[in-house]
């Protein structure tokens, strides 16, 4: 109607935001700035940090954390948490190790069973959360404790100790090790293959998140599960799949660890779940869901790796790492928050 055309609501007539403002609304912008700062800082104060060997070390440190952080970021965008993710990295390694060292299975077969186990636990997490309507924080706290108990109990029952070792002498170790734990040489320096897995995983996750219809559903179920269900988004399937993705990532990391170190402690992985969440939050994920970025989470993990190794190169006591982490987390969240506010103002 002519009237409406003449007088559209004033608040929606603002022009297009500029390039800077559009950049600023990206969720990963805070982590990018942080990564840049940390990088410059340690490049200046230490010598090893920029050396090829140094780079390989902090990239490697970031890689396994990064794989998990990326998976966890998808889950968080979908509005859920997984506190069992850290222990899962040990559980999967233990399953593989016990099956191949104690029962003499071929490593590949052990890996397959371990994968099925992980996917099963992920599906169970998701199913319980969706079925009971309980917060995933509680449900996965339960799986976290249960897995922790299983890890210790079964390991002790089978080996009599709290660790499983001896992977090197198992069938199929060399081929599996090639895939998960080998190194490759680039410019004269050798890098762990886990870095490749990390990059690959990030690229796939990010593509799914921003380019596919499923990615759209992830944002939608995290933003408002009820509204999404009302328009036919398969909320349950989406969330269960996200829990399974996290479990898959834990399997990948568990496999990388067991094949590289050839042994695993039954109490490994505890406490890591918070590092995954911290990296995802530094990368721009909101705790409330519906907002975030997979690339951001990968960058968050990169900050972790750079700082952890940088502190070593600087010959500081590693006690300082926690302080650094706290400051980093707070400032990233504050920066993200401030930028988002600004973006909202610009767009209003």
């Amino acid at each position, binding site marked *: 109607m002519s009237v*409406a055309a003449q007088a559209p609501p004033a608040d929606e007539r603002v022009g*297009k935001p500029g390039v800077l403002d559009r950049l600023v609304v990206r969720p990963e912008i805070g982590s990018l700035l942080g990564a840049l700062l940390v990088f410059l800082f340690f490049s200046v104060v230490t010598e090893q940090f920029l050396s090829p060997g140094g780079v390989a070390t902090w990239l490697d440190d970031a890689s396994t954390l990064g794989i998990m952080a990326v998976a966890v970021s998808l889950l968080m965008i979908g509005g859920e948490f997984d506190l069992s993710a850290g222990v899962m990295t040990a559980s999967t390694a233990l399953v593989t190790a016990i099956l191949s060292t104690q029962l003499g299975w071929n490593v590949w077969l052990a890996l397959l069973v371990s994968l099925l186990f992980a996917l099963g636990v992920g599906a169970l997490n998701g199913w319980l959360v969706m079925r009971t309507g309980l917060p995933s924080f509680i449900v996965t706290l339960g799986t976290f404790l249960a897995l922790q108990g299983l890890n210790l109990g079964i390991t002790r029952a089978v080996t009599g100790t709290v660790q499983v070792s001896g992977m090197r002498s198992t069938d199929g170790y060399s081929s599996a090790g090639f895939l998960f734990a080998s190194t490759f040489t680039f410019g004269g320096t050798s890098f762990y293959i886990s870095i490749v897995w990390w990059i690959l995983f990030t690229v796939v996750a990010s593509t799914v998140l921003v380019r*596919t219809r499923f990615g*759209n559903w992830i944002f939608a179920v995290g933003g408002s599960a009820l*509204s999404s269900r009302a328009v036919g988004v398969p909320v349950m399937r989406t969330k269960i799949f996200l829990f399974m993705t996290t479990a898959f990532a834990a399997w990948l990391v568990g496999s990388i660890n067991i094949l590289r170190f050839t042994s695993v402690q039954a109490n490994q992985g505890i406490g890591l779940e918070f590092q995954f969440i911290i990296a995802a939050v530094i990368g721009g994920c909101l705790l409330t869901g519906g907002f975030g970025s997979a690339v951001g989470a990968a960058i968050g993990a990169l900050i972790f790796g750079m700082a952890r190794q940088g502190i070593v190169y600087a010959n500081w006591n590693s006690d300082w790492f926690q302080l650094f982490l706290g400051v980093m987390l707070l400032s990233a969240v504050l920066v993200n928050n401030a930028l988002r506010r600004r973006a909202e103002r610009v767009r209003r």
Partner: protein
Amino acid sequence: MTAGADDPVLAHPGQDVGPDDLGQPLLRMTGIVKEFPGVRALDGVELSVLPGEVHCLLGQNGAGKSTLIKVLAGAHRPDHGEILWRGEPAVLASPVAALRLGIATMYQELDLVPGLSVAENVFLGHERSRFGFSRRGAARAEAAALMRRLGHAEIPPEREVGLLSAAGQQLVSMARALAHDARLIVMDEPTAALASDEVDNLFRIVGELAADGVSVVYISHRLEEIRRIGSRVTVLKDGRTVASGLPAGTPTGELVNLMSGRQVSTVFPVREESAADERVEVLKVEGLTRAGEFADVSFTVHAGEVLGIAGLVGAGRSEILETVFGARRPDAGTVSVDGVRLKPGSVSAAVKAGIGLAPEERKSQGLLLDLPVAHNVTLASLGTYSTAGFTDRAREMADSRAVLEKLELRPADPRRLVGTFSGGNQQKAVVARWLVRGCRVLLLDEPTRGVDVGARAELYRLVHELAADGVAVVLVSSEVPEVLGLADRVLVLREGEVLADRPAAELTEADVLDIVMEGSAATELAGVAEEASS
């Protein structure tokens, strides 16, 4: 609505339906029963919708309208009853099943994902994709085309929905229903959040849909709308169908009688003797400005005076109220209560000075949905209900029960969780909060949004009572007759600018609409406005 007289939509599409079609309804629901714990929301409802008609669903707050359409949308499963879709029995097991049949629904509580863009929301659940990959360009182009069709090409498809105004979000919701190519579109109080020009726009679309043979089920508490676009009417009362297939021309009195079982003479308030005491300036706002929202707004409200603010959605009305209340910080200007200047941008200072605000967005700003109504009602006045930190629950319950009875809350049980009440009843709880507290200045933002005719009359009476007790009331409403009938003085806003400040008695609905739309009413009006503001 004055615009109705020359509106093209007046031709009732339903009346063009031939006798053959009349025999074969598109949808027929019979004996639908739906129970919630403690309430039988639907108790044997009948509804029959013909192809290409605009079928209006009327009923008081809590009558079961939204529940019925949720059954139709596949969001609720009925306990009993039969649904025939084009003559065939249909099971609406899920939202997807309903959408597949061609039933698209615009829910009463806006049902969008705030973090997604306009285009993503429009196509959520039926994404434009190839091999699982989103075709974002296509989705954006189609969403843009839909927004153009809705007369709002200025809303870009990549804009985040959470950043749009209520009216903007309503449009997105509408675009989504259109995107489904549905045969039946259900609209649950779509005009509650819209100003009159937006309503005209919506009605144009509804007319076009009906002409294309799409049926519309339309729910509204604004009875005059029924006559403008409706074909036939079904009336619900306490979960039962009390009349169906009535012609849209049925007199208002008769419809109200059917809905409530009693006589309500007028829908809008009749002007009463003003209670304003010119000697006592209670609220004084001077030069209030927020860049991009409103500029240089000044007004005074005396004790016992009701000041109405009229204007389009987006003219800055809610923003002004929120700024007076301290929820937004002004760039310039001052707010004083009883001659004392308030600290800018501080809600607690405003509340301490006796200002109360019943906000427009009840879900996000007003209510704690998981708490009982009683707690919600006394939330702002807990201080008066507690001694040494302990709350007097009995008195809390008794007082809220009294107010809620006055406002005709249904079901009349203050212990129930707010979230389980119907939309209109939730709105009553928001308003009740400030009635219990007793304030010096009461700011009401769209207080009757979604409230039925009977409860509305009661609310108007309460406002008059408050004014008679010396409270200064500021009322924002999109319904001009409501502003004119309730207020002593009217401020007309357009794009954040005060264009007129005049006694309500000197204004007609046409004057207000003219100023609101054109910015300049008759020249004599502009003169008066200057006079008033000087």
